[in-house]
């Protein structure tokens, strides 16, 4: 029986994967072909979605992007045996985009049936947890610390230190919370791993709970990800049935449960304390720190809160050992970063690589430049609070410290590429508008400053007192940066200031036009 893979990934579905899967099943039945369709995660070559793969003795052969109208010709050509066809991309694992990566966190994503515990285990799943049970909680915390893993949610805080703080709190009710709010434009790695390899997140949470002494985990997922909600809920139930969640897991004496909770469209709820408030059923108003969530977290109890990617990387660190992970990367950025390549690009998708790769290599070589075919003008790195990086800085390596030195950030690893038609004063205005829409309202600089920012940029765009208003805008950015409680108000100036710094001509258009 031929095995055919068609992703259930939301991006693949957005390009017609569900209809394609139905059409393939129907065509196979009509032709009397006995096939099994597995709905896998995406391999990350998103421009090829929906990508059909068929298992052949030489490896998995891919066909994409495949549409319903291609189905008959695929069967005619003999795609079930991996035959030639206009959409044939060859052996998927041999594709240059795959070969150039170092897949660590995403090693199973797109490869296995996301909801098969047996396949997960056959691909080294639960080995990390088993090793955790062998070495004991303290050694797990030690191992995570030594790996150098830093939080992938944006702030890059060392994960091991966070865990140690919670582990050191006196025994009692503690929580593991996973931040799956993934609100940054240009990011989709959390979504992809939860759709494509949900057990890796569950295993990471189990290891964390075991290490810090927590028996309950929550995953806070944004409401914009309906397919994740379905897949992840099914994964929780499957893990229960297989004895990987619940009481006395695999005879270890360790109890752990995971519950999925859905957000409600507030970007600020990705901020960890706002998220905890929301989980408690309140308005997502950011809490002042201290106390840290590690001491006083969910319902006032010690709480580890980590991003999806941080948590999903833990099983591999425990399986292969801290050194294996720490040996990758540059400087204080250890391991790999799943980059998300988006916006106006020819080849968009998920590209996991060791830290240190230059930004320009990613944009020009990996992403293949713009989809529009026009020159690249700017790349926003790190979501809506990240700076716009001009082409002149393309030799910047993907490294937390290198980006910070240029008043930029890596954040959650999203790269949004813009061509030369972009109007940077408009993007700056949008940055301020977004902050105004999403502000939790606790601090004046963020709540009112962002609205003042929009008004001021409007004046600049209208050519009113341009020089004076640019000074005012810079002042405003300064006040927001230093007077805001959390990084929404504090980092919203990054895109604005970087636009002003690198693309000043876009703020003087009316003046330039008048001068002509």
């Amino acid at each position: 029986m031929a095995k055919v893979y068609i992703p259930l990934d939301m991006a693949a579905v957005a390009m017609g994967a569900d209809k394609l899967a139905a059409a393939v099943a129907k065509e196979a039945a009509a032709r009397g072909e006995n096939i099994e369709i597995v709905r896998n995660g995406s391999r990350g070559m998103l421009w090829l979605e929906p990508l059909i793969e068929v298992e052949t003795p030489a490896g998995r052969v891919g066909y994409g992007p495949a549409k319903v109208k291609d189905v008959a010709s695929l069967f005619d050509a003999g795609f079930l045996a991996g035959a030639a066809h206009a959409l044939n991309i060859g052996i998927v694992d041999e594709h240059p985009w795959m070969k150039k990566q170092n897949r660590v966190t995403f090693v199973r994503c797109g490869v296995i049936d996301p909801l098969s515990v047996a396949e997960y285990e056959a691909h080294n799943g639960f080995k990390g947890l088993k090793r955790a049970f062998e070495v004991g909680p303290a050694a797990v915390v030690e191992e995570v610390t030594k790996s150098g893993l830093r939080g992938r949610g944006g702030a890059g805080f060392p994960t091991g230190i966070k865990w140690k703080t919670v582990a050191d709190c006196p025994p009692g009710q503690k929580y593991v919370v996973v931040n799956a709010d993934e609100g940054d434009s240009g990011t989709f790695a959390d979504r992809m791993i939860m759709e494509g390899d949900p057990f890796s997140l569950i295993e990471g949470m189990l290891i964390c709970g075991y290490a810090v002494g927590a028996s309950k985990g929550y995953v806070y997922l944004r409401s914009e990800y309906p397919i994740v909600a379905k897949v992840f809920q099914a994964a929780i139930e499957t893990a229960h049935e297989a004895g990987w969640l619940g009481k006395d897991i695999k005879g270890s004496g360790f109890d752990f449960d995971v519950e999925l909770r859905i957000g409600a469209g507030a970007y600020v709820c990705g901020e960890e304390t706002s998220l905890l408030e929301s989980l408690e059923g309140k308005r997502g108003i950011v809490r002042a720190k201290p106390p840290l969530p590690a001491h006083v977290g969910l319902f006032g109890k010690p709480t580890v809160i980590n991003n999806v990617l941080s948590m999903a990387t833990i099983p591999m660190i425990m399986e292969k050992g801290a050194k294996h992970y720490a040996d990758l990367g540059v400087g204080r950025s250890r391991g790999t970063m799943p980059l998300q390549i988006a916006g106006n690009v020819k080849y968009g998708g998920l590209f996991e690589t060791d830290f240190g790769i230059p930004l320009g290599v990613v944009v020009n070589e990996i992403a293949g430049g713009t989809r529009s075919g026009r020159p690249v003008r700017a790349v926003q790195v790190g979501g809506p609070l990240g700076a716009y990086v001009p082409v002149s800085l393309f030799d910047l390596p993907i490294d937390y410290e290198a980006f910070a030195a240029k008043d930029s950030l890596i954040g959650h690893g999203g790269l949004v590429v813009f061509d030369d038609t972009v109007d940077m004063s408009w993007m700056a205005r949008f940055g301020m508008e977004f902050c105004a829409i999403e502000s939790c309202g606790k601090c004046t600089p963020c709540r009112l400053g962002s609205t003042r920012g929009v008004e001021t940029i409007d004046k600049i765009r209208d050519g009113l007192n341009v020089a004076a208003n640019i000074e005012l805008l810079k002042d405003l950015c300064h006040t927001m940066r230093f007077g805001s409680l959390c990084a929404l108000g504090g980092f919203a100036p990054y895109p604005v200031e970087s636009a002003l710094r690198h693309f000043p001509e876009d703020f003087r258009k009316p003046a330039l036009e008048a001068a002509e």
Partner: protein
Amino acid sequence: MAGAAQYSDERAREIIAAHMGLEGPAMPILHAIQKEFGYVPDAAVKQMAEALNISRAEMHGVVTFYHDFHRAPHGRHTLKICRAESCQSMGAERQARAFLDKLKLDWGGTTPDGALTVEPVYCLGLCAHSPSALYDGEPIGCVDSERLDEIAAEARD
């Protein structure tokens, strides 16, 4: 949203009761209420406040904090159009503006026949296929103005 039930206090109380075993039940209850009735009626807010033992003002504050919860019925269909940066890099803002102008709507507005509500959304995680949209929960990548017009027509039938 299509197929929403008529509000009744009794049904609201059932929904609330079904979630009271959870830690921090407010958000799951609000989602369940909105799923059932298509919006979060004031009467349900009152029921929730009583069940959760908080003031109505506080409960009201929770509902209004979140963009997803709405306090009046929406159109029969909902189209969420992404206006975040990645989609803007592919011309989403101009395209959405033109679409809204054609329907004589602003963001969040509903067509006069009650068929379609158009809302902004800030990233759907489909940024490699910008511009993107979500129509009654169905994701759409590389959406163009033709597809938007089709959706508006589909919603009307």
